[in-house]
């Protein structure tokens, strides 16, 4: 780290998650370089929901993987609670794009996976049932993942991560496979979970409406190289009304930003 590192640490006292000048490039099979993120900076305060929107290849998912510790930046500083991120941790939960429940585990055992892996299951057994009840999964504890609907699978995936009570939850298009109706219900459930557990949530979405509905801030990104072009605060009260003029106005703004970049 450079001589400015001390002030950076100071800053993260308030800004729980801090990314500064992050660069991550991949080498394609033909040897050409694909810059997924270029000098990308982002500061996130405690308990905020941040939505990253933008077309494919703008580095949204790459950023999530960096925060999760599944990947490392080639340049830049990435701090969580003042500490550099090194490797995955149960304090930074990740809900993957394909709600990948473990098909060989029942719903209850999927929810309990993290607790069992960390050896906390015996003392915190009751929390599994609480989480299952909270997510409306009661009665399906013993069901196999292939027996439940897509909406329920999303709930199980959320329960699996939220039961760990992480400081950061990364959502990589978690609802993209669902129909619009189920998606709207589960968006409300995400807000309710967020209000109870108060984590930072970083949401990657192709759906601008979803981003505006859920997020405190929407970060608009563009591809090649992936960088940020706007950071909009959404000050609408919750629960939000999708058809309110303010809501529509913000949506329009973001869509126009994305469109102007395409040209």
């Amino acid at each position, binding site marked *: 780290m450079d001589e400015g590192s001390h002030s950076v640490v100071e800053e993260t006292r308030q800004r729980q998650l801090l990314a500064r000048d992050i660069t991550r490039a991949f080498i394609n099979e033909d040897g050409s370089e694909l810059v997924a993120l270029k000098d990308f900076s982002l500061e996130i305060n405690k308990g905020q929901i941040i939505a990253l929107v933008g077309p494919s290849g703008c580095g949204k998912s790459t950023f999530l993987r960096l925060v999760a510790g*599944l990947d490392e930046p080639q340049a830049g500083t990435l701090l969580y609670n003042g500490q550099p991120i090194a490797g995955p941790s149960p304090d930074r939960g990740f809900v993957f794009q394909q709600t990948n429940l473990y098909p060989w585990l029942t719903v209850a055992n999927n929810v309990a996976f*993290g607790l069992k*892996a960390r050896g906390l299951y015996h003392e915190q057994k009751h929390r599994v049932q609480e989480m299952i009840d909270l997510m409306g999964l009661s009665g399906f504890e013993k069901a*196999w993942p292939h027996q439940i609907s897509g909406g*329920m699978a999303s709930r199980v995936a959320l329960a699996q991560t939220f039961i760990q009570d992480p400081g950061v939850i990364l959502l990589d298009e978690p609802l993209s496979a669902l129909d619009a109706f189920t998606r709207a*219900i589960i968006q409300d459930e995400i807000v309710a979970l967020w209000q109870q557990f108060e984590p930072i949530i970083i949401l990657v979405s192709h759906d601008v409406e979803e981003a505006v509905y859920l997020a405190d801030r929407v970060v608009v990104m563009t591809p090649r190289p992936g960088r940020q072009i706007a950071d909009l605060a959404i000050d609408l009260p919750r629960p939000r009304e999708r058809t309110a003029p303010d809501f529509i106005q913000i949506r329009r703004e973001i869509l126009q930003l994305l469109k102007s970049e395409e040209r």
Partner: protein
Amino acid sequence: MLGKQAIKQLRRGSAQAKPPAPKTLMQPAPKAPLLQKPRLRQLLQLALPFVGIFVALALHQLLPNVYPANYSPRYWAPILLICTAIYALCYLLACALVPLRRRLLRLSWLLAAVFLLLEIYDIATLKTGTLKLPFIPSPDKVIEQFVVNFPQILQAASASLQLLATGFIIGLMLGLVSGVLCGCSRIANYWISPLLKIAGPVPGLVWLPIFVVGFSSSRIGSIAALVIAVWFPITLMLSNAIKNTDLEYIEHAQTLGASRLYIVFHVMLPAAVPALANALFMALAGSFGALSAAELAGVKSGLALAVKQMGTIANFGVVFAYVIAMIFIFSTLTALMFAVRNWLLRWQKGLVRW
């Protein structure tokens, strides 16, 4: 900030506002009732094997015994009557129990055909002499030999099963260990995979003389040949499946706080179970082959050896009796293996049942 109660309220609220509440999102598979009265058509179809048995019995009793001269059958008719009694019991149970009925309905044509075919065989041997002794004994003769030689058959079968079980279990254990090691560790893979490539594909019969001499014990040598036949497919398929575990499963477990060791046993191994189930079948088939080879060239005991010895002295009635015992044992073991597979893969959708 909303409290937990409020969240529950909110959840309830959203469920009320939208008619299809979460519960209806899932359609549990409709369960068929266990007990149900059969329809007339089903009763008739279930009776088909009776027709087969009675036709066989009638032909057997009515046609004169001509070959060999002065031979009077004693076993075939009682056996057919015993079959009638057993099937009658199944028939009555199937009238009440739906799962058994479904199975028997599917088998009914097949069973009827089997008895008719056996009667054709009876006619071709005992009743006309079209198929000649000593090579093709009549069914009556085969059953007579089975009854007369039953103690020896039982002894041979138990010797075969002991050898098979010892070799299979040791091979399975070694295969599980080396499969997991090869799949997870590059170093283990470096040292084990050459062994796998050289030793694995060679049939047990080839190894046998070397092992018997090498271990200076025909029993240990035979077990070693069986172990290789089982160890090879298990190690190969398990290690490949573990190496190909979906990366997202592993990364997901990492973000949930799982250690490397925990991931091996709770993610990679269960993800490899479908491949393991297939490998178990290959191992079982391979072990049957290796068992026969070991009995002929190694331990000099068991069913396969008896078949060969009796064949050499042209006692084909006994050969047939031993073959029946082998068919019974091998098909029972295969059915058992399918039960194990169905249990291992009970979480899979649309599994083909045996």
